[in-house]
């Protein structure tokens, strides 16, 4: 049993490596709490029920985009019968959520989602002066 030292240190190294992500997350202060989103201040009800938006807001945006650009349908009737302009910057951000950073980005960063929409669509907060 002359290899005992090797075996235990190998096992120890293995354990450290396997559990490394946990320590890393502990150090970075990540919790299971989820992102701290800033809820819309003015708007009480979203264009669609929250449960739908949570799972399918990207589908909704995709159909907004198709309808507006390809079919010229630029208004949207929401679940509660209100009519909204189809506009990513104008309606989603300016009218409802007030801040892209504290709402969309916080959750996307948390979930490691990246979208390229804002390469073109303008975050109203950055509208003055050249962005980026």
């Amino acid at each position: 049993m002359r290899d005992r030292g090797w075996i235990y240190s190998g096992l120890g190294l293995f354990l450290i490596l396997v559990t490394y992500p946990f320590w890393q997350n502990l150090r970075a202060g990540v919790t299971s709490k989820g992102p701290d989103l800033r809820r819309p201040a003015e708007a009480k009800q979203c264009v669609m029920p929250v449960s739908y938006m949570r799972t399918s807001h990207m589908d909704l945006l995709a159909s907004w985009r198709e309808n507006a650009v390809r079919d010229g349908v630029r208004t949207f009737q929401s679940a509660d019968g209100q009519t909204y302009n189809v506009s990513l910057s104008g309606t989603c951000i300016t009218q409802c959520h007030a801040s892209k950073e504290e709402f969309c980005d916080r959750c996307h960063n948390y979930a490691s989602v990246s979208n390229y929409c804002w390469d073109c669509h303008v975050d109203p907060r950055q509208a003055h002066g050249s962005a980026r």
Partner: protein
Amino acid sequence: MILDRKSFLRLTGLSVLARKLVAAVTPKRWAMVVDARKCLQKEGCQKCIEACHRMHNVPAFAEPRHEVRWIWKEPFERAFPSQENLYSQAAFRDKPFPVFCNHCDNPPCVRVCPTGATWKRDDGIVMMDWHRCIGCRYCVAACPYGSRSFNWLDPRPRLTQMNAEFPTRTKGVVEKCTFCEERLARGEAPACVEACPEKAMVFGNLADPASEVRQLLGARYTVRRKPELGTRPEVYYIV
């Protein structure tokens, strides 16, 4: 009422259908008539270009090979190379004519687009879907009027101010004039028409015999750019 995914899709589908129906009942064919004599009245006037480019976040690149433009001025002999009448050319030589997408009735750019990112709408507008543009530049090569620009560089640093209501574009995407379809949808005239101090640009519905464009076309002699190519432009010039 809680809307599920299915009824949501059904609703949006219905609203698209309803719109197509309305379009079928009241036909529209957008066109523009440019009165060159009015346009040439104020030398060096750039109002239409400024209004359009500010509204649509069109970047200003100094280098011609990077240039992005929706509306610009072209010397008469370059804008109308097929006008062979030597004497009328002398009067207009080097005079700047406002040019932009002709929204051709037979658009060559649409035929070559491999992704369907550009197409002819029922109301005559040659529309562009920036989301589907893959930057192949076939359309740039196909357009005989130079109306399409490619973003060789990131446009954002070249914008001194951004209009948040209209998206910019990115590097690798083609862009052009859309007759301000986003303004038409709100019942407003195109930005250039509104900005022109001489009212040299008249915009309207060709399908309506009482419209101002039809009145003008009926009463005045007009020319179109490069008619011999068979693209049938929907932009007419009174010279």
